[in-house]
């Protein structure tokens, strides 16, 4: 919110050309500078650590100047020992269907609740919004038993090299399957996505829907050919947000997957820890590499992010 108002404020207030340096402004900048350093410090520290060998830090401590010089060996080790490409692929297999399904379902609910008035309009919307307030951790134990007792068809698998992607399920259960992970993400993100999309759809006048109806389009057609194209900015914003949410997930993959090789990249970072020995430098390198995709997505789709934050903040 703060960013959004700042952006909006900057646009409205044109700065005068010959302005003087006020003390208040200097204090503000000093403060901002300090906060920026505070935020960047852990990242910079992780980067520093990841560029040093374990032997170097073991001999001289973490707070020391690197004597062996900086190297990229940790990144190299992570790429090979961590089997990085496999885990990135796992993440994609979960995130892409997850985001797509969430957007389809959420836009359907939002469409019905905003474009048509019926009795339980608000109730349904509130139900979906209320779902956001539920902490997922509460559900872990029952979900585990539901997952281990839900039969899912086994329809063979697609094998690419050492990687095997089971169609639906490879153990006849929902447990330990990508599909189970996708479903739980869809369930937990649909609430938020519905909330945001319905706020956006409220700004679309109902006359559009009505004229489409008059032209003979059925409800499905209106949703697909009229409303969804109009919602493109909102969908793009939601897609980027959902991507980061699902990408960042550590928790569900840890509980609902049993097979170590099926884990997405975030949870796979855990694989770098051994029984006794933990190479913190290697983990720092791994964490930084795992950070890259969301950062890239943010840089490329910055505009959508900001519009995503302000979605529905004004009433249409």
């Amino acid at each position, binding site marked *: 919110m703060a960013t959004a108002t700042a952006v909006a404020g900057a646009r409205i207030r044109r700065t005068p050309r010959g302005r003087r340096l006020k003390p208040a402004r200097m204090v503000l900048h000093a403060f901002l500078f300090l906060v920026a350093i505070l935020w960047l410090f852990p990242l910079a520290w992780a980067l520093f650590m990841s560029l040093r060998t374990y032997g170097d830090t073991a001999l001289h401590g973490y707070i020391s100047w690197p004597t062996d010089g900086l190297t990229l060996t940790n990144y190299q080790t992570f790429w090979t020992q961590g089997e990085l490409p496999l885990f990135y692929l796992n993440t994609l297999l979960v995130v892409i269907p997850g985001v797509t399904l969430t957007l389809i379902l959420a836009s359907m609910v939002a469409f019905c609740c905003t474009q048509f008035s019926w009795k339980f309009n608000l109730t349904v919307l509130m139900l979906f919004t209320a779902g956001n307030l539920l902490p997922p951790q509460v559900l872990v134990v029952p979900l585990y038993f539901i997952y281990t007792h839900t039969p899912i068809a086994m329809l063979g698998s697609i094998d690419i090299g050492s990687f095997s992607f089971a169609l639906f399920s490879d153990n006849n259960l929902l447990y330990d399957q990508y599909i189970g992970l996708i479903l739980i993400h869809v369930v937990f993100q649909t609430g938020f996505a519905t909330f945001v999309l319905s706020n956006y759809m409220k700004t679309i006048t109902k006359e559009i829907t009505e004229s489409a109806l008059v032209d003979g389009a059925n409800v499905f057609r209106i949703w697909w050919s009229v409303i969804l194209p109009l919602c493109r900015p909102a969908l793009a914003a939601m897609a980027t947000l959902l991507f980061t949410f699902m990408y960042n997930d550590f928790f569900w993959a840890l*509980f609902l997957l049993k097979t170590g090789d099926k884990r997405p990249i975030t949870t796979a970072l855990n694989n770098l820890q051994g029984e006794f020995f933990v190479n913190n430098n290697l983990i720092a390198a791994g964490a930084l590499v795992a950070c890259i995709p969301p950062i890239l997505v943010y840089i490329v789709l910055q505009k959508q992010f900001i519009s995503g934050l302000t979605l529905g903040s004004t009433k249409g």
Partner: protein
Amino acid sequence: MGDSREAKRVAARLQARSLELPYVGEVPLNLDLSRRDMLKIAGYGSLAAFLAACGSTSTTGGSITATGGNMSLGSYGSDPGSKAGVKAIVDAFTAANGGTKVKLNTVDHGTFQNQITSYLQGTPEDVFTWFSGHRMRFFADKGLATPIDDVWNAVKSNYTAGFEASIKGNDGHAYAVPTDYYPWAVFYRKDVWAAKNYTVPTNWDDFKKLCEQMKKDGLTPIAFADKDGWPAQGTFDILNLRMNGYDFHVNLLTGANGQKWTDPKVAQVFKKWSEITPYYSPGFKGLTWEQGADQLLRKQAGMYLLGLFVSDEFKASGKQADVDQLDFFAFPDVGSQYDAEKALDAPIDVYMVTKKSPTLSNDLGQAKAFMEFMAKGSTQVLYWKNAPGSIPTANDADTSQYPALTKKAVDIVSKAQKITQYFDRDSRPDYSGPNGMQGFLLRFLSNPTSDTTSLQKDMQSFWDSLPPE
């Protein structure tokens, strides 16, 4: 904003329309498709079952094991060395057992341990890696492990009595095959000791005198690091074993025979312990075991009581010269009648067969063949080559390749009359954790010289508050 009457009219029309939405009619078609799919699936399924049956018919008559076929293995060996070791074992097993296909699932060590209860109750693999001691008996009692007496009878001639005792459940059945172990001892650097003319202390007074001398020489006498809570339990174990004996220790840790934490013998342990706490590393509450090992590595500390895995840290530092300097001695005698037991912590890692694996009914023969394979010295040496911190347990393991440090470790364990598994493997998990013993020991260590009566009372009341296992 449209006319509200108009909106209602549209809504009414919409409701009327939705009753005759065309895709309602698609449902039976869908059902039809899925029924056909089901038939197809059933067909493939029975074909697969038929093929699988063909594959596993090569069972030799009367034998408990089977060749060919499939089995699955859940492993917590996530360290690079362990991972390579398990992979080598699996490949060797496949080659030796008529091409049995092993599906290996490696999960990082911490997660595997944390989720073990749900793992064993859910859909575990046929065989899994675990620990001996109370932790093994606990799951055996709960009926989550398959007894393997037949396998054990076939391989027990390859093990000493100490190992046999470690894999027996409370019901007397064998539940595991021990595959490797490592001892706890006092580690030091040979070069530092040679430069200062230190000698290995054999009794408590010499040990304290040595600490005093090291302090004078500007060293931290005993490296100590307890950020993670569990390392301090090693000191408690060895002191309690030396002062009060094996039987008392086991009774205390399991609450057997009415043994209580308020016993004055426990107070004696704390009192003895407080005599060496002044020689510990400063700020040990914030140090991980790796940082403690670094103090030894950097020649800042003189001694370190830890498991053989301390050598991992020396290796990770990247210099073989440092690894070569590492040596250890058994914890000194304290002048009690139990010194003669030479008891020590030597945790044993084992392989077990699960109970609830969905594939176990098909794979039991292969799983048992794998367990027999694990009991061979040659198999264990294969693992040891990749993970040298873990010593093979089988009698027929080829010891000629062992470096001096490993030979010495074998020696001190074989001299011990009693072997324990380490506090958190010998006691119940909820008691040994951060809310229990780990926390109590940290409390003791923050004020070691004070009276421990109230601490022991709290330890006992926490024990009493735990639900029955």
